[in-house]
């Protein structure tokens, strides 16, 4: 009976971390650490961005979890890390750990949506300046960036196909950037668009992919690279459509 629950705790922890955007090696490491502190020294874990496999020992039955959606939520990664530390130091038994993990799973975002929108807007404006844009373009990028980020979250909930949501959001960014230039409110359309799409661009995914490849996690590296490439292609296509029309 206890074995069953230890497996559950490990899989739940791994699933939470992977869904929240932790690195693959960290997920495997955490799962094996948890299993070891419950006395299973031969535990085996294998994580890829789309699935986790786990066995309490090499001859035991293997368990499997499918990961459907991935996002970046570093607060959850921190909390799971805290639970894993508590388990390693022997402060948590299996049931408490499972309960703690379920609480983490069910909680909402740390920041309300409006704050995230504002953060995306500020990041967009700042990126315009960082790419040597003029301060005139700060406000246009600010508003277009907020719009792009907001639309992307909206489309994500509405459309289940992720790349199409990104495509639509990017084309709206392009459209509004074009309008701003057309109404003579901004200077350089390129800088405004680059700043405004930064919250959408999978820069982190690209770097993570290369990093996984270097660390020898070939499957995860290629999967993440493909995801990043598709996202970048969707954004580029969305912008290109606007350039095409006008």
């Amino acid at each position, binding site marked *: 009976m206890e074995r069953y629950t230890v497996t559950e705790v490990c899989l739940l922890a791994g699933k939470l971390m992977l869904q929240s955007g932790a690195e693959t090696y960290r997920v495997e490491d955490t799962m094996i650490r948890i299993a070891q502190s419950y*006395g299973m020294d031969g535990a085996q874990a294998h994580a890829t961005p789309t699935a986790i496999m786990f066995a309490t020992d090499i001859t035991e039955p293997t368990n499997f979890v499918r990961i459907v959606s991935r996002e970046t939520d*570093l607060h959850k990664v921190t909390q799971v890390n805290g639970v894993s530390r508590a388990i*390693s130091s022997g402060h948590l038994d299996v049931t408490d750990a499972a309960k703690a993990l379920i609480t983490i799973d069910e909680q909402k975002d740390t920041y309300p949506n409006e704050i995230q929108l504002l953060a995306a807007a500020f*990041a967009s404006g700042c990126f315009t300046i*960082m790419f040597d844009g003029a301060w005139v373009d700060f406000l246009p990028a600010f508003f277009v960036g907020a719009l792009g980020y907001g639309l992307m979250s909206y489309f994500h909930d509405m459309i289940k196909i992720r790349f199409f949501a990104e495509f639509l959001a990017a084309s709206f960014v392009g459209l509004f950037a074009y309008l701003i230039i057309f109404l003579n409110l901004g200077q350089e359309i390129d800088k405004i668009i*680059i700043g405004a*799409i930064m919250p959408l661009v999978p820069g982190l995914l690209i770097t993570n992919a290369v990093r996984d490849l270097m660390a020898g996690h070939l499957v995860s590296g290629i999967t993440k690279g493909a995801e990043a490439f598709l996202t970048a292609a969707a954004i*580029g*296509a969305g912008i*290109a459509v606007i350039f095409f029309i006008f």
Partner: protein
Amino acid sequence: MMLIEQMVVSFFAAAGFAIIFNVPRQVLFQCGTVGMIGWSLYRVLVLFTVDEVVATLAAAAVVAVISQIFAKWFRTPIIIFNVAGIIPLVPGGLAYDAMRHFVENNYDVAIPYAARVVMLSGAIALGLVFSEIINQMIRNGKWKKYHNKYDRKGLERS
């Protein structure tokens, strides 16, 4: 003057991204700081006509070292500071340029951009891995006993 402007701007950009990625509130300020240090170092190096790839490599390595210190200090996973620190360095703008030229059928312009993106991402990843390796070497050296005792494996249970 330009450098101060860039520092302020990169601080807010990194902190903004930290909010988008749901970083815990207590370390938001530190995330911005890591991003600021990485980007300032990159700008200074580029100003002294160092190659962009080398500058990115150096900045990423410094970001990773600071992240490691902060992760120990504030007892959080290192990925939080890593992410915030490398966000300004990530070649998102170049990736956009490459993609735009690809979809506009300007393949000969797009390919240099794409190659640049690959080189820069590789440099970031290499910088991160590099400092991790150094950290591991230190850890496996004289501090090994200390770590085993206090860090993770408290296997006191029966």
